[in-house]
Structures are given as C-alpha cells and as structure tokens.
C-alpha cells in the first residue's frame, strides 16, 4: 500500500456523455509521497486544476484509480484540504469564525475550538485581527486566513490551486516563505498548481510539467537544493530555462490547437 496520494491511469473527460466531451486529463499516473511538495506546472487549461479537484474528492475521475493512504477517494474529506486562488472567505463571518468554520462543523467544545483558532491565527501571523471582517483584509492576509482555516482540520494533503496568483510579487514571495514554514512544521504533503516557473522553483521538491490538454505528464524535475533558494544561482537559472523550454513547446501546441477551432 502506498502512503500519500497515488494516482494511476487517471482519465477525466468533462461532459463525457454530452455532444462535445472535453478531455481534461488523459491516463495520468502520479504519486505524491507523505510530506512531499509537488508543484504542477503547465499551460492554462491543461487539466491540472481538474486533477486537484479530483484529489479533493469534489469531482469524480472518468476512469483510473486515485487513492490516499491506500483508500479510494470518492468524496471530500477534511484531511485533504483545498485552497483556491481567491481565499473564498465567508464575508458574513469574522476572521476568527472563518478560521473556525471547519471546527464548528465538526463540533466539540467551544472553549477548545476558540483556543485552537487563536493558536492557528498566531501560527499564520495574524494574532490580533480575529474580530475583523474579511473585506477589511488585504489579499495576502485573506490568503493566510484561508491557510489557517485549512490547517485547522489537520490536513495530511494540502491541495492548492494557484493560491498566490492574485497577489503582488512582494506579497507572493513572503507567502511562499510562509507556506514553506507551515509545510515543514505540519508534515503534510502539498500539491500546488501554478503557471509561474519561479514559484515552482522556489517551492517544489518535484516539478511536474504538464502537456497541453488533455493533460499528461511531460517531464518531472527533482530539486534537491535546500530552501530558501536563490533563484539567481546558476543551478536555478538552468532549471528555470529547462522548465521554460518544456512549457513553451506545450503553449505552442495549445495555440496551434486553438487556431484549428
């Protein structure tokens, strides 16, 4: 039995029974080990987000198997938490209640819950803002609240769909550092989707480059360099070039396909 996320020959076709089926992922196999940080890199619409939603249990694969710690994924579970590009905080709840939302669904002692929420907010560096409303926060703060909300469920797998894409470049760098700290201390696996090569280089144990739709794995790059990484080091620049070349091929293919339509 493989620990962590295990995907074998997975195919996803959107609108499979309809008049215009859209293949999103084609016979893809991928393993994410316990505690591993995997970044999915690929052109837009290559099916990497589809894969994330299937791993979250929000969508079903058309064929193939997907398991977590050996158990088939058929529905969402708090141990596999999902983070979106926009934080998707509930505007009617305070920041504290947003962080505690999952805990309150689960039930339990209110006192214990409140303590846990306070601890989580400190952990993501937002100790003093529990009573504020989400709309009063900056984009980076909102994303940290979303992270705290996910961490509250003690996830073993964090699925992140371009979580920092909407942030400015400075905030983005800080959030990446922050994510790395949290990832190390939590021991969770991370599967993060991005189309920023720099982000992939800064974060990943392993970069999985996707082909154009329908998504398949084009290449896998392992990065052993310790973090924080200097993206200007010759080694990183070389890796970056490699990613860029791989991606460029696929983007060209995707464009060519769109022109045929």
């Amino acid at each position: 039995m493989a620990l962590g996320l295990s995907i074998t020959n997975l195919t996803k076709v959107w609108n499979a029974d309809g008049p215009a089926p859209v293949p999103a992922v084609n016979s893809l196999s991928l393993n994410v080990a316990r505690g591993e940080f995997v970044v999915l890199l690929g052109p837009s619409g290559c099916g990497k987000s589809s894969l994330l939603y299937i791993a979250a249990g929000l969508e079903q694969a058309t064929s193939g198997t997907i398991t977590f710690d050996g158990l088939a994924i058929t529905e969402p579970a708090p141990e596999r938490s999902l983070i979106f590009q926009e934080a998707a905080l509930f505007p009617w709840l305070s920041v504290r209640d947003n962080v505690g939302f999952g805990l309150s669904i689960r039930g339990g002692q209110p006192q214990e819950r409140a303590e846990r929420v306070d601890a989580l907010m400190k952990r993501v560096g937002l100790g003093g803002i529990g009573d504020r409303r989400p709309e009063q926060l900056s984009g980076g703060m909102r994303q940290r609240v979303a992270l705290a909300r996910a961490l509250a469920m003690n996830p073993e797998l964090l699925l992140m769909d371009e979580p920092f894409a909407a942030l400015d470049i400075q905030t983005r760098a800080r959030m990446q550092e922050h994510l790395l700290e949290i990832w190390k201390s939590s021991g969770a696996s991370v599967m993060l989707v991005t189309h920023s090569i720099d982000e992939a280089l800064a974060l990943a144990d392993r970069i999985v480059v996707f082909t154009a739709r329908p998504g398949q794995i084009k290449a896998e790059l392992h990065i052993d360099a310790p973090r924080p990484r200097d993206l200007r080091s010759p080694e990183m620049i070389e890796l970056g070039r490699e990613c860029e070349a791989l991606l460029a091929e696929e983007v060209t293919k995707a464009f060519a396909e769109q022109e045929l339509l």
Partner: protein
Amino acid sequence: MTDMILSSAPAGPNPRLHAALAKARRRIVATAWVLASLSLFVGIWELAWWQKWANPLLLPPPHIFLTNLPDQFRFFDPTGARAGALNAGGSIWSVLGVIGWSSLRVFVGLVLGFAISLVVGLAIRYFEIFGKLVLPLVTMLAPISPVAWLPVAVFFFGIGNPPAIFLVFIAVFFIMVLATLAQVDAVPKHYIQLARVMGASKRQIYLRVILPAILPGLFVTLRMNLFAAWMVVLIAEAVGVGSGLGQVTMMARNTFNASLVFFTMTLIGLTGFAFDQTLGLIQRKVLWWVGPSTVKGA
C-alpha cells in the same frame, strides 16, 4: 466632491469627534439633496398654479392641499373601520391611525412574503422532487397581477385586514421565490466546495453557507418590491378592505375632492419613503456583507 474634501481634511486633536462631525455633515448634505429634489418638484407645481396653467380645482398646488389640514383630517377614520362618515376623524391622530393601518398591512404582508418565499425557494433547491413539482407552478403564477387576485382575496378572506395582507403577500411571494432560486444558483461555487471539503452535510451547507450568502441579495430584492407592495395595498384598501389610505383616496375620487387626493398621495409617498429608508438601514446594519449579485452601498 464634498465627501472628498471631508475625508482629506486633517484629523483634529480629537479624531473621534472629527469623524462624528464629518458623518453629521454628510447626513446634512444628503438631507439637503432630498429637500432640493422635493422643492424643485413643488416649485414647478406652484409655478403652474401661479401662472394659471393648471386648473386649481383639478390640480391644487401643495400650499392649498397642505394648509387646509383640519378639513382634510375629517376624512380619516383612525379605527380602521369603514370610513366615509365625517364624524369619526378629525385630528392628526386619526391621520396617523390610517397611515398605521396601511403600514401594518404592508409590513405583515412583506414579512410573511419574505419568510415563506425564502423557505419555499430553499426547499425547491433542497428537495429535488418538491422542486420539480412546485417550480413550474410558481413560474406560471408569478406573472399574474396581484390585482387579478383581488376577487380571490375577497372570496377567501372577506372584508378587512386579511385580504389586504394576502394581496401584499401575493405581490412579493412569487417574485421572491424566483429571486431566492436565482440567488441560490449564484452562490459562489467555491463557498460550497469549501464547505464540502470541511465536511459539511447538505443541511449544514444550506443553513450555514447558502442562507447567509443569499440574504443580502434577497433583501435588496425585497426593498425593490416594497413599492409594488404599497401599490397593491392601496388597491386592496380601495376595493376590498374599506379603510386605510387607499380607501381615503377612493373616497376622494368619488367625491371629486382633488385636495384630498393629493394630500393622501403625499402621505403615501412619505410613508413609502420612510419604509424604504428603514429597510435600507436594516440592510446596512444587520446584513453588512454583500451578496455576490448585489451592488454595494445604496
């Protein structure tokens, strides 16, 4: 422009006082605009009278129908009973009583319409079979004017408050059911996915995510339909109830009392305005978060 000047002014030694002053000033400016809007309208009307463009018997200007107040007051029966006799009314209290009766009918009808349409709308989405059975019916009944329901209201409820409340209810119910559905369908997908990932059951998703997500938008819809409710209550009062502002208007029409018509219209306008402002206040204070398909502010 005024707002910009106010907000860019440096905070004095007491920022709280400064903020309060700025707020008061904004209120005064807003009120001044309301008065200016009103004055413009009244001014044109008075000008028409002064220039003898309009027949004062048919179109008496405000200074006429607002000055012979004791005369007007006689037509208002505060008990909510069938008025028309000139003996019961006569004071400002009787006028307020009549306004109160009409307002009460609108209020009760709106509350019932809002609550029941919300429950029915949510149930249509929650229980699939219920939805399939009920939705076509609602869609077919929605375009029927509340006026067409008037005879039905009288058959069912006779004369008095119930038919008027029923008509207000009808005026908002079907529209609000459809609005509830539209709002439910517009709840951001990510909210629901997130709740599912957190382990929420269907019931919890409806109560703790969908319901709070749709309330502000529904409230805006309710506020828009408030005026429809007022129009309907007047018709109901004129025909099926026999008391209230609608009845007074009808009586004024029958007795060819133009002054009274315009006086009552003024009262209706002011009361409707007050209702709208109150709903706006509730919206801002209680439902501060803004739904996905609503406009901020207002």
